[in-house]
C-alpha cells in the first residue's frame, strides 16, 4: 500500500481507479448504523428515559394528560426522526467511496447528484485515527484528514473496518511531501 500511487484525476469512477492501481475503499454500512445509534442514545437519554421515569413516578390524576400518551409521544418523537435519519445515512454511506491516488485523497458521494471532496497530499497537516464507543461496538473505525486552509477542511473517512493501513499511507505521504516548500507555506 505504500508504493507510488497513480494519478487518477479525471478517472474517479471506482472501477477505473482500481484498474489504474489506486486505493479505493468502500465504507461499511455499519457507519450509518453507528450514527443512528449515536443519535438514538442521546435521544433516549434526554427524551424517552426522562419521560418514562416521569410516567412511572407520577400517579394518574383525572383531567390530566394520561401517562400512556406521554410515553407514546416520547417514543414516536424519537422513532420518526430516527427512521428518516436511517434512510438518509444508509443511502449516503452506501454510495460513498474513498479514493487515494498520486494526487491526494478524494471522497466521492454519488446518488443522484455528485459530491466530491478532495485534499491534495501536500495540504494535509494532521491525521486523526479515531474509534468512538459506538464504533467500537460496531467494530469500525474512522480517519479524519485535516488540511490547510482558513475553513479548516477535514475529510472524514468513516466506516473503515481497519483504519490503520490507510492511516499509514497518509502518514507516509505526509512525510514524502515534506519539503522546504511545505515549510514555507503560509496559506
Amino acid at each position, binding site marked *: 500500500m505504500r508504493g507510488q500511487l497513480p*494519478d487518477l*484525476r479525471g478517472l474517479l469512477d471506482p472501477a477505473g481507479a482500481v484498474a489504474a492501481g489506486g486505493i479505493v475503499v468502500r465504507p461499511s454500512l455499519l457507519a450509518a448504523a453507528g450514527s443512528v445509534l449515536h443519535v438514538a442514545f442521546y435521544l433516549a*437519554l*434526554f427524551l424517552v*428515559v*426522562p419521560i418514562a*421515569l*416521569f410516567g412511572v*413516578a*407520577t*400517579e394518574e390524576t383525572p383531567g*390530566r394528560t394520561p401517562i400512556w400518551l406521554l410515553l407514546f409521544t416520547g417514543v414516536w418523537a424519537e422513532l420518526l426522526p430516527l427512521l428518516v435519519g436511517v434512510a438518509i445515512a444508509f443511502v449516503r454511506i452506501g454510495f460513498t467511496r474513498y479514493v487515494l491516488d*498520486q*494526487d491526494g485523497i478524494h471522497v466521492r458521494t454519488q446518488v443522484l447528484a455528485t459530491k466530491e471532496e478532495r485534499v491534495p*497530499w*501536500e495540504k*494535509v*497537516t*494532521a*491525521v*486523526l*485515527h*479515531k*474509534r*468512538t*464507543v459506538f*464504533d*467500537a461496538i460496531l467494530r469500525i*473505525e474512522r480517519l479524519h484528514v*485535516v*488540511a*490547510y*486552509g482558513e475553513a*479548516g*477542511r*477535514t475529510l472524514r473517512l468513516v466506516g473503515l473496518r481497519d483504519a*490503520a493501513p490507510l*492511516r*499509514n499511507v497518509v*502518514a*507516509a*505521504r*505526509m*512525510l*514524502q*511531501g*515534506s*519539503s*522546504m*516548500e*511545505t*515549510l*514555507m*507555506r*503560509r*496559506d
Partner: protein
Amino acid sequence: VRPRPADYIQPGERVLLQQRRHPLSVLDELVAIVLLWGVLAGGGVWLVFLSGLRLVPEFQTALLVAMAVLTLGAAWLAGYRLLRMLTSLYTVTDQRVYEAHGRFWFHLLQTTYDRVTDTHVRQSPFGRLCGFGTVTLQTAGTGLPLTGIRDPLAIKQQVEEARSRFVASLRRAPAPATAPAPGRKASRTAQLAPPGAAVPLPDAQVWLGRPSVAWLGVSLLAAAPFLVVGGVLLVIGLLTLPPLLFAGGLMAFMGVVTLVRILIVYGTSRYEVRTHGLVVSSGWLGRRRVETTYEKVTDLETQQSIPGRVFGYGTIRINTAGGSSAPVAFVGIADPETVKSVVSQARAARLGGA
C-alpha cells in the same frame, strides 16, 4: 488501565520521547464536573426539599428525574475524563509527534514537524506546583495538544530541537519524494535548498523587551475611573442610598481586577526576538509561552493608539498560518517601529539563510 501499545509509529522513525499524562492533570476537570453537578443538583434538592415552596407534584417528580439524569451524566463524564487520562500516551519521534488516548474507544492525532506553525505552553498555578502543563503544537488545520505533560518547558525544548533537526534534513534534501502531478508547477525545493548548502544558524537572542512604563501608566489611568466611580457609589450607598452598594461594589471590584491584570502583564511579560523565531512568555501564578518560527509568520501588524503615539509605545501583532489569529503579540512595547524592523531583519536573515 494502561495506554494502548504504540504500534502506530512508522517504520524507520526513532522515538525521542514517550510520556504518559500526569495523573493530577485530570483533577481540575474532575473538580469542575463535581462542582457543576453539586450546584445544579444542590439547587434541585433545595427547591424540592428545603425551599418550603409548594410545588406541583409533577414538577417535583420532573426535577428529581432531571437530577437523576444529571447525576448519571456527571458520572459518565468523570469516568471518561479519568479513563482518558489513564490511557493517554504522547510520543515524540525524529519525524513527527503523536497524541493518543483510549483503548476501547481510540484517538490518535499525528503531524509532521514541517506542518507545525507555532508552539504554545500553558501552565496553571496548580500545574506549576505539581510540574505539569500543556504543550500545543499548532498547525494550519488543527492543534495537537499534549495535555498534562510533565516538565512542559523542557518537552517544548526537545520538540523544538527535533523540529530544527528535521528542518535541517529538509534543507539537505535534494527534492521531495512526491513527483509533481502533470500540469502542476514544479517544486521550488531544489532552488531553495541546494544539496548541503544550508547550515542552520545557532538560536540566539536578538532583542528582549517588555511592556513600557508609559503603557503601564496609561493603562492604569484608563482603569482608574472604575475604582473612583465605584468608590464614590460605595460611599453614597453606605451613607444614604443602600441600593447603590451593589453597583459600587461591582465597579470597584472590576477596577481592582483590571489593575491587578495590568500589573501582572507589566511585571511578567517578556518578548524575545531570536534568530530562529519569536517568543512571548507571561504569567504570574500560571504560565503561558508562545513560540513561532519565521517560516510560518505571515504578516506583522503595528497598532498605536493616540496615547501610544504621544508617549511612543504600541503593539506588534504577528500573524501565523495557525488557527487562532495573531497568537504572538508584543503588547505595549516602546518604539514599536524599531522593534518591527528588528523582527523584519531577523526574519530576512533566517529566510535568506534558508
